[in-house]
């Protein structure tokens, strides 16, 4: 559907370096990256607002690198809504239809339909400045899909909203995708957003695409240290493979003073990095409580409440995330001796 081939663009502070991506028809594709990674320029280059310094862009196998935005059949939604302040909600939504020289009656019918779909019909005659952030973003989405684009580009569409509205609009975006079958390309720095919405995720850092994969692959099998760190893998350990039996490697980790078992193809003697997400770890009072291969003893050094979860740091440096409920059921306190248990399949190993 969208094929981005070796795109580079330099805008001084922000840049793209040799970006190649394939986005499938009807896919919800999320570009995840820290602030300043070049995500917005990538989106704006797909939209045709910037012409790449090199490389090309294909939409449905047609080279559109030199095609102006108006001929690309692309809708654009920004974080700051960018509604035309001098037009009412209905006029904003109908803006693109008016450009397409569609009859007044037809425009009205289409605008009404979208207003009902996004539950903003009661706002039709209001001006953007009088709307809440969530309402404004719904208008922006309606305006973008009114022209029936093949692709909808969303630049941090939920970042300026409060958390309740964000959750609600997330569902609305999913619904828009289902209802219209539009290919969605959504840029965000928010991992939950990416996890909830994406069919596939591309992680972008410093103008480059670092990894593309399903949410599971990106969050559980990051390709390197930087990616692991960015996607919240809090346990990043260096080790050496001691042996490998039937695809399960035993890795000696000097930092925690014990060995970890991991499903991996690396062989004895290989220096490796071990990634383990904190939520993959179960803490218990006794050894052998589960069938998991790894069972590491330690004392609790730190307990930190983060919303409904507790972040536990053990003396070995291992970090676990557990629910408040399980914290209470095993009576965790600083100094308590616990066993950190996790499966060999939960551990991701890369070359160190």
């Amino acid at each position, binding site marked *: 559907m969208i094929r981005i081939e070796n795109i580079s663009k330099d805008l001084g502070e922000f840049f793209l370096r040799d970006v190649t991506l394939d986005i499938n028809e009807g896919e919800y594709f999320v570009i995840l990256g820290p602030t300043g990674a070049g995500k917005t320029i990538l989106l704006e280059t797909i939209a045709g*607002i910037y012409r790449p310094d090199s490389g090309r862009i294909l939409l449905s196998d047609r080279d559109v690198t030199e095609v102006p*935005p108006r001929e690309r059949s*692309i*809708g654009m939604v920004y974080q*700051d809504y960018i509604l*035309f302040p001098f037009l009412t909600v209905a006029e904003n939504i109908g803006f*693109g239809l008016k450009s397409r020289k569609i009859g007044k009656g037809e425009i009205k019918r289409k605008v009404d339909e979208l207003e009902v779909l996004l539950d903003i019909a009661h706002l039709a005659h209001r001006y953007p400045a009088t709307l809440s952030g969530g309402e404004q973003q719904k208008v922006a989405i309606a305006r973008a899909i009114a022209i029936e684009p093949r692709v909808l580009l969303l630049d941090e569409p939920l970042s300026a909203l409060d958390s309740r509205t964000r959750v609600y609009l997330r569902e609305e975006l999913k619904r828009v995708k289902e209802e219209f079958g539009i290919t969605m390309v959504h840029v965000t720095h928010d991992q939950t957003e990416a996890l909830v919405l994406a069919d596939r995720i591309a992680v972008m850092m410093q103008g480059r695409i670092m990894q593309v994969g399903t949410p599971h692959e990106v969050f559980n099998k990051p390709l390197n240290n930087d990616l692991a760190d960015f996607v919240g893998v809090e346990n990043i350990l260096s080790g050496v493979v001691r042996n490998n039996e039937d695809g399960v490697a035993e890795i000696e980790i000097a930092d925690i003073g014990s060995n970890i078992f991991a499903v991996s193809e690396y062989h004895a003697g290989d220096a490796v990095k071990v990634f383990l997400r904190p939520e993959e770890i179960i803490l218990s009072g006794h050894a052998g409580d589960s069938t998991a291969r790894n069972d590491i003893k330690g004392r609790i050094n730190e307990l930190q409440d983060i919303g409904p979860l507790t972040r536990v740091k053990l003396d070995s440096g291992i970090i676990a995330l557990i629910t408040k409920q399980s914290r209470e059921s095993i009576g965790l306190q600083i100094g308590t001796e616990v066993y950190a248990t996790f499966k060999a399949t939960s551990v991701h190993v890369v070359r160190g």
Partner: protein
Amino acid sequence: MLKELKVSKIKIITILSCLLLAFFILVLITCVVTHTTLPALMTSLASREIQFAIKLSLTTAAISTILCIAISIPAAYALARYDFFGKNVINTLMDVPLALPPLVAGVGLLILFGTTSFGKTLAETGLVFVFTPLGIIIAQFFVNVPFMFRILRGTFQGINPRYEHVAETLGCTEAQAFWRVTLPMSKNGLMAGSVITWSKGIGEFGAALMVAGATRMKTETLPISLYLNMSCGELNLAIASATILIIISLVSLFFFERYGGFARVF
């Protein structure tokens, strides 16, 4: 205690300075408008000469304002949106007419249109600027274009280019995006710029005097009329011109403050 005393002293001095300045301005305006009686003023206003001056001032200022808008919209847009070679130099050059004494600007215009082959070529096609109302228009344009330009540049800079980007994805060409989105969003800036350019145009004297001369009933705008009548002792006529100029200034100021709150000239 000592500090309080010091603060209140400063307060008194500063407020007094304010009052003094305001009083000075008020006295000055009152002096002009109360210098003659109302009937005398009405008679002067009805005189052919003052009627001519009013008409000439209003028309020349309106035309020069339209010229200022026509050139400032694209020029200010370019400087607000694009990076190009020599941009900083051009930005500075645009402000030169602001700093230049109008008389000097007038001399420059006189030489350009009166002595160079460029001016002579224009004159041959019928565009004679020296000692004609056209000269008044060009003088007003040159001296006042920086006001319009600066207000519009600030206005365009204040409009997020993403508005145009969105319009372009919604089917607009670059020009349509500008026409349908940027221009309506610049309404207040355009309004403020037009009011200040027009009112400054009406009051323009020095540069216009140099290029267009001060010929009664030919190049006699309100300020020129004021100058001519003062010179030959026709005080009533002079005061009539001055009063109209004061009224135009005050009304313009009102509109500028109303629409140009965000637009700063300096």
